[in-house]
């Protein structure tokens, strides 16, 4: 039994590795297909053809794509993400600070939104078809239907412009006290929490409702179990797989999908860095950002799958 679960987990990890290689391949060639020639862009329109030609050679832009890909992949494995075309700084250095910022925002949002969403989702399932459940469902559908830039803008209007409680942008560089920290992060975190919680609430509610309708929960009810015992002891362990998956999907959004929130609050995160990189045709930077997003996503979904495997006694 034991070695079976180990092999299942190893198989899952192997799939993740293969996916990672395919994804890096796709990322590399997708960015390589972007229109515009890097050398021309870097040198400006006034550059002589000889200068452009020389630069192309120096940057190995004329090599076959597969060699460039392998060279780049080898670099990534060694932690060398290349040098930014735009300002000649190592990509790793450019990214590291921004990545920390994004992870800070994502971590804070996760810490708040996951417990909040699960509590709401599970209570809604326990009290299904009551006024509470219906109001929550309507509110969630409302939130899902409103685009996040709208939520972010409304938050700015309300808290920064009318109430004057919070600054309109996040000055992360000026944080000295806990109060500063709270002021800087309040609005982005609240906006993101609203955006990613909706999905988690819906999914956890659905998963728990489904298990509450099974014969074994009815059996437990007929054994005299309390409502709390039914949900936490009988339903939740069996609903864990789908819930963890929903959480992983929602959290993955915090890595790459936050560009709008970062832009509205002028938060120096990695998504904003990537968009800036696109406008300067800074291929190494774009590739590195994309690969980080993909790996983050892969990490989360793989973790969710492994938790689902471990929580299933049929596989244990």
């Amino acid at each position: 039994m034991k070695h079976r679960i180990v092999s299942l987990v190893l198989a899952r990890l192997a799939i993740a590795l293969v996916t990672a290689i395919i994804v890096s391949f796709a990322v590399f060639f997708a960015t390589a297909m972007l229109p515009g020639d890097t050398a021309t862009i870097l040198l400006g329109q006034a550059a002589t053809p000889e200068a452009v030609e020389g630069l192309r050679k120096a940057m190995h832009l004329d090599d076959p794509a597969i060699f460039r890909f392998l060279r780049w992949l080898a670099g990534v494995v060694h932690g060398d993400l290349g040098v930014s075309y735009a300002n000649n700084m190592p990509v790793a250095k450019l990214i590291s600070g921004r990545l920390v910022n994004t992870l800070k925002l994502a971590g804070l949002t996760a810490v708040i939104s996951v417990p909040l969403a699960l509590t709401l989702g599970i209570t809604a399932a326990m009290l299904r078809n009551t006024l509470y459940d219906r109001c929550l469902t309507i509110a969630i559908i409302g939130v899902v239907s409103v685009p996040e830039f709208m939520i972010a803008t409304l938050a700015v209007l309300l808290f920064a412009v009318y109430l004057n409680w919070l600054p309109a942008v996040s000055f992360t560089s000026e944080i000295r006290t806990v109060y500063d920290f709270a002021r800087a992060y309040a609005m982005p975190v609240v906006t993101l929490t609203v955006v990613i919680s909706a999905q988690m609430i819906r999914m956890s509610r659905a998963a728990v409702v489904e298990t509450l309708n099974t014969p074994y929960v009815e059996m437990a009810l007929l054994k005299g179990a309390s409502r709390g015992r039914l949900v936490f002891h009988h339903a939740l362990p069996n609903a864990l797989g789908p819930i963890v998956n929903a959480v992983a999907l929602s959290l993955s959004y915090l890595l790459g999908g936050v560009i709008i929130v970062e832009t509205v609050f002028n938060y120096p995160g990695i998504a904003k860095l990537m968009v800036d990189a696109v406008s300067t045709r800074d291929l190494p930077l774009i590739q590195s950002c994309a690969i980080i997003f993909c790996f983050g996503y892969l990490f989360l979904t793989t973790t969710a799958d492994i938790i689902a495997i471990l929580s299933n006694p049929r596989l244990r």
Partner: protein
Amino acid sequence: MTSLVEIRELRVEATTDSGRTIAIIKGVDLDIAEGEIVALIGESGSGKTTIAMTLMGYARAGCRIVGGTVAVDGVDMVALSEKDRAAVRGAKIAYVPQSAAAAFNPAIRIMDQVIEVVRIHGVMPLEEARAKAVALFRALSLPNPEMIGDRYPHQVSGGQLQRLAAAMALIANPKLLIFDEPTTALDVTTQVEVLRAFKSVISAHRIAGIYVSHDLAVVAQIADRIVVLRNGEVQESGATRDILARAQHPYTQQLLAAVTPHHAPRPAVSGPTAAEALLEVHEVSVGYGPLRSDGQPAIVAVENVSLRVARGRNLGIIGESGCGKSTLARAIAGILPPFAGGVVFDGRELGRSARSRSADQLRQLQIVFQHADTALNPAQTVEDILGRPLTFYHGMARKPRSARIDQLLDMVKLPRSLRLRRPAELSGGQKQRVNFARALAADPKLIVCDEITSALDTVVAAAIIDLLKELQRELDLAYVFISHDLSVVEAICDDIVVMYRGRKIEQITPEAMARPEHPYTQLLLSSVPKLDPTWLDNLRQDPEQVRAYCQR
């Protein structure tokens, strides 16, 4: 003797999906004395489980107790608060579910679920409960009673789970047990063992109980009294022997008639057609999964089975779940191509897969599946369902097709007014008739019937069997009739093949069913419950045989 349970004027209503309210229990009175087992008998939808559930003050989602009293030990369960009901459930009144496989939580070890009642109600120390559980496991003749509690539900068999569910119900010494069709999902050989175990613990603990079932023969073994229900009303009630011997109500008589097989030996067909084989299956082997290097699939479900069906005759295939009988049916129909052996139909070798057979070969050999619910497209009307084979096999134009659909409906005795209905608007028996009419639409010579009566109530199933016989006389059909229900097969078949673990072990005639030769057939046939209430007590089975052939 005072009654432990007094149900008076019980009424339960259900709300349908469309919001309509319908009465499902219409004023039922019922008494259970201390230590008495009362059986509730009736077809599906008669309200037997609903009544049993009200003893715990419980109605399933969408149902509501709207009137009457359910007094258990002097306390009206209907009037109690949810919290007070919870205090009674499991402790004083316990429930043995229909499908233990579904009623055990897959994520929790068996022992923890068995003693959960004790944990909830705190009636004894947990260590004592564990010791008592092991004693119950032993009393219910479960294998390895010390260790079985450490397993997860998926690691034990269905028959074992059913007995574990009984242990779970008995752990807190309840006064009243509710058995909800506890052996319906089991094979007959397993059922014998489970019924015996139930009976011994019931008499040992002098427990009163309500036994919900549709099977009169099973109930006859275990119940003191029988209550016959139909459409939420009591039709008849009385002591078990009286009901079995002198049923007054026509519906009870109908139920009794449906249990007793009515095999009328058909005169052997004389003339040249008698010996002529319509279907011959030569040493067919079928399996699932990828082929291994030796050309065999990973799982072999049917091994080296040969059959012969004469023109206009019927062959029955019996065996317990997992013996490969349905797989064999699928192989004959070409849905699951065999990896070895061949099928000869009407003197010509058929392709192994349906794809390689001609349209005319497909037309002459039809298959009817067990679950009409899933076999009929829910989005199509009866007319569309029957019209499709008419167009496909016969290329009929609209007018003759329409006339033929009317004829087909007449043949299966469905009113023509059902033409425009969809499957969801038909009853279970009606759906199975449409399912069968679709096969008839092809004008086949042979119909493979895969458990077509198993999902139906006994009375409805008996009517389908009569219909099949009648159509056979009129249309010169041959059937391959697959079932785990021996009385059904006995009623319709000329020859019976017994399968066990993918092999054909014996072929007998219904007349010879009283004295089969193979030990497994003996065991199988002797395990079929009889209406005689002393059947189980007098049943002697060779323990060697039981050990050899049952995976209990």
